[in-house]
């Protein structure tokens, strides 16, 4: 596992470091607190000890009668603190002359080292070392009971605390090792937890890696995925859904293109090869060239239609928007188709308020409407008419192209706007285009943020384009 990639620490490293540092800090402060409280406890104990000793010494002094000899006083002192074996003390007069000192003790220097205090407590006791031993110590004064000794008496009191210090020292060492060990355990545990926690992510990555363009049907297993990763897995699956759909359409489209182009190319090749197989008259050659030309024209139109659709798919079409009077536009188209529709004995009737406008690209809108009108005329029986109606309401504008004619079965209706879709396969190659007309209409309408739908019931087919006034599409709006 890599902990550092391109200057970025891995998640595991980051989490391990931060959690480890947190736990270590916690343990260290915990240890410090324990040590401190034990130390305080010892200090309290020592202070109690010293105060008890002081009390004994003071009561001893109080019992002394004024006329007692110094020797007698010494005797009294020697038994004064018999219960406190850790404590030792030294009594001196104001001049520093030692009157009594606990045997074996060496507290003379203490008198000069620290100042006398009135009370003995945590704040006034001092640490004092002598001969390699450490004492908790205090100096206090008392009124001399006898005139033989100059008042006040100075009493140095100390209790040896080496065994406390030793205990603290070993406890400190023990605590340190314990802390280090605990930190290590914490870090390793964190690392394991983080690593383990990322296992579902690694599993998902493996699954994602298995999805190639040939394997787009694969999906991430959402079972057993932790709830935090569910949205990710679901989002990824949705993305694959869309990709698969797009891919499928693309590959269908390419397949259709190949198929649609293969037919005219085969025709051209066969025709040319047959023509070349023997000598022919100039007229015959001309005929062949003409026939070829027709194929070329059909292919050119197909290619430019497909290019248009490909651009529409990739949002490369940018309508040049102007305000267009829809009724006027339909009238011009009716005029354009007049000769042709009249020859088929079909009338084109335009109706609607002349003031209704839509903001659109004129050439594109014309192309879309012309496709719809020519389609409608083509399927209308002679003697009938095609209705082109513009309507408006508070939400937008609707253009409906209605024609009587064979009802389109519902199963075909949804596919009408698909590329190369022809409900009737027999109509394939009789000069009616490649089946891209309605797909182009849909692309154009969508590029303008509109919607198109087709309905067909009881021998009446309606294509309806809808432009909404309030539209999320960025470069389109309608007015009425």
């Amino acid at each position, binding site marked *: 596992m890599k902990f550092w990639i391109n200057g970025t620490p891995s998640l595991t490293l980051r989490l391990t470091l931060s959690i480890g540092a947190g736990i270590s800090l916690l343990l260290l402060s915990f240890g410090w607190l324990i040590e401190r409280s034990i130390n305080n406890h010892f200090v309290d104990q020592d202070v109690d000890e010293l105060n008890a000793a002081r009390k004994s010494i003071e009561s001893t002094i109080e019992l002394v009668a004024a006329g007692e000899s110094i020797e007698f006083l010494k005797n009294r002192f020697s038994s004064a603190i018999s219960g406190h074996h850790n404590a030792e003390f030294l009594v001196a007069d104001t001049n520093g002359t030692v009157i009594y000192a606990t045997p074996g003790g060496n507290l003379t220097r203490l008198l000069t080292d620290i100042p006398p205090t009135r009370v003995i407590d945590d704040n006034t006791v001092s640490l004092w070392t002598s001969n390699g031993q450490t004492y908790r110590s205090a100096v206090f004064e008392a009124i001399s009971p006898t005139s033989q000794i100059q008042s006040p008496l100075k009493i140095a009191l100390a209790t040896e605390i080496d065994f406390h210090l030793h205990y603290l020292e070993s406890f400190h060492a023990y605590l340190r090792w314990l802390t280090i060990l605990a930190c290590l355990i914490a870090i390793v545990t964190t690392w394991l937890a983080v690593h383990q926690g990322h296992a579902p992510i690694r599993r998902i990555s493996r699954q994602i890696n298995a999805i190639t363009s040939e394997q787009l049907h694969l999906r991430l297993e959402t079972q057993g995925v932790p709830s935090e990763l569910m949205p990710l897995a679901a989002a990824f699956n949705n993305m694959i859904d869309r990709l698969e759909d797009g891919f499928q359409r693309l590959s269908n489209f390419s397949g259709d293109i190949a198929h649609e182009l293969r037919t005219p190319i085969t025709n051209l090749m066969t025709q040319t090869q047959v023509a070349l197989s023997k000598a022919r008259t100039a007229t015959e050659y001309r005929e062949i060239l*003409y026939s070829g*030309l*027709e194929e070329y024209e059909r292919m050119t139109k197909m290619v430019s239609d497909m290019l248009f659709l490909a651009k529409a798919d990739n949002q490369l079409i940018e309508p040049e928007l102007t305000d267009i009077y829809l009724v006027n536009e339909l009238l011009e188209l009716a005029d354009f188709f007049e*000769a*042709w529709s009249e020859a088929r004995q079909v009338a084109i009737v335009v109706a609607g308020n002349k003031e209704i406008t839509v903001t659109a690209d004129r050439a594109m809108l014309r192309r879309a409407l012309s496709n719809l009108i020519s389609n409608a005329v083509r399927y209308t029986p002679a003697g009938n008419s095609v209705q082109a109606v513009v309507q408006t309401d508070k939400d937008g504008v609707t253009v409906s192209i209605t024609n009587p004619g064979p009802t389109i079965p519902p199963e075909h209706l949804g596919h009408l706007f698909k590329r190369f879709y022809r409900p009737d396969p027999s109509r394939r190659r009789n000069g009616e285009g490649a089946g891209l*007309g309605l797909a182009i209409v849909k692309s154009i309408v969508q590029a303008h943020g509109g919607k198109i739908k087709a309905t067909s019931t009881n021998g009446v087919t309606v294509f309806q384009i809808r432009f909404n006034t309030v539209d999320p599409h960025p470069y389109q709006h309608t007015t009425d």
Partner: protein
Amino acid sequence: MKLLVVEDELKTGEYLRQGLIESGFLVDLVHTGLDGHHRALTEHYDLIVLDVMLPDVDGWRIVQALRDAQSSTPVLFLTARDSVEDRVKGLELGADDYLVKPFVFSELLARVRTLLRRGNATLAQEQIQIANLILDIPRRRAIRGNVRINLTNKEFALLELLVRRQGEVLPRSLIASQVWDMNFDSDTNVIDVAVRRLRAKIDDAFEPKLIHTVRGMGYMLDIPEQQKP
């Protein structure tokens, strides 16, 4: 009329030259932008047909150099990309018209002729006569052999277009664009029907036949060769 064709695609260039020569033009063909640049600036041409996607000096620079040199030679550019930017760029730089590849040759020819005519402004003729057909433009009337012929507005516009461009083959797309302002390929044979109807009124009862179908290319109005004075 002398034309310069700058086209790096050898086959396309050759066919363009042949087609234009056969249509009665003198044609110089060069295959590189550098040659084109040089020729355009040093020699006189009535029109330049320019491919903008050239490997060395691109077409835009030639147009620019030409306009910088205060030359008003019409330029028709050919582009494979029918993007709006391309179109706008070309026209802004001073080109006069454009065609998107692949184009139909008759379309190119029609546009070349339009551009050449633009230079020497056609007189606003009141009347045009071809054989025994008389077009009274201001009154929008057509008379054939002393017979007044009733034409609809669009039929008159179509006839006027054919008459004004007498002897030129007009492709269907150009007719749709000029007469009806429809700039797209319709899946229908609407132009054929319209011409057929016009022909029924103008030609059917009269001699000589003036409107001719040029197969694979379009329509043309002219006096048949053998009848020409």
